[in-house]
């Protein structure tokens, strides 16, 4: 099933048209997107480094995540919002860009990694919550998360790099 009709409809919306045609709007939304995802990655890194046992070892994992993850989620929500706005402005081209597709796949993987840790890896959290040395499942979750999110950022940069010829200004 081709998503092209959906992409074309998206591109035709008033918002998408405004972003695509307004010289200021795209860079502004894009910069906001960058700001949001830097906070997403930075806050996730704090948690991942704790899971890996590399940093914040003196803090309980549960305390750290309770404090940090709300920030992550707020930033992520705005990253998705700004990302959707950017995508809509040129949906068909982005939709067929290999780096965009890879970025979406990696985001999905990040979600799955998080889910696995939430459902399985953190079952016995009470046993190692305060420990400096964390179990291998926690290390794996933290390590994978870091790698996946770095991949998301790299793909994002490559989307911009491969889409440069699309813009007239």
């Amino acid at each position, binding site marked *: 099933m081709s998503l092209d009709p959906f992409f074309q409809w998206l591109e035709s919306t008033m918002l998408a048209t405004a972003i695509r045609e307004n010289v200021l709007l795209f860079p502004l939304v894009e*910069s906001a997107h*960058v*700001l949001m995802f*830097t906070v997403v990655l930075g806050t996730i*890194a704090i948690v991942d480094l704790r899971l890996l046992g590399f940093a914040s070892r003196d803090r309980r994992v549960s305390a750290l995540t309770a404090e940090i993850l709300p920030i992550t989620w707020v930033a992520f929500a705005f990253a998705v919002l700004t990302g959707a706005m950017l995508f809509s402005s040129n949906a068909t081209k982005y939709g067929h860009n290999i780096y965009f597709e890879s970025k979406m796949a990696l985001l999905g993987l990040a979600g799955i990694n998080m889910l696995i840790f939430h459902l399985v890896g953190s079952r016995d959290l009470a046993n190692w919550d305060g420990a400096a040395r964390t179990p291998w499942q926690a290390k794996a979750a933290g390590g994978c998360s870091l790698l996946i999110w770095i991949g998301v950022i*790299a793909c994002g940069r490559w989307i911009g*790099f491969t889409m440069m010829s699309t813009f007239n200004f």
Partner: protein
Amino acid sequence: MPHWLSVFCAWLKSTPLSQRLQPIEWLVPLVQVIHILAICAVITSVLIIALRLVGFVSRDRSLAQMSARFLPVIWCALPVLLLTGSLLIIIEPVRSLGSVAFQLKMALVAAGIIILLVYQRALARDPTRWERPGSRLGAGLVAIVSLLPWIGIIFAGRWIAYAPGQ
């Protein structure tokens, strides 16, 4: 672009290092990714300190403790930003140095660093100054003033692509 800058850019572009790196297509985006990752470290660290200043996070730890934890991350990330930034300049001197957005960004980097140094010094002199009763407004102002340059840096940095030097 002033003449001396033009001459400098031409020289930079002609150096063996620049000549060697220019044809490598994937080098600029790769260096940019590392640059972005280092910015993540800085922005997040400044944000955490700012949030602690206004009491939104880690109230069980002092501002001094939190700053001691996160300021070093910034100081370590800055050399990475300098190195990756320098590489980008060496590969595309005119595009970067000739851009008003880039020049604004450098001014903001200077401001951002100075503000952090002043903050660090003030905190060392009086570790609880922003945790005492009546210091909330001051703490809030410090939080905003610390964060603003770095937000500006991200916007100015992205803007280079839209107003490159020519």
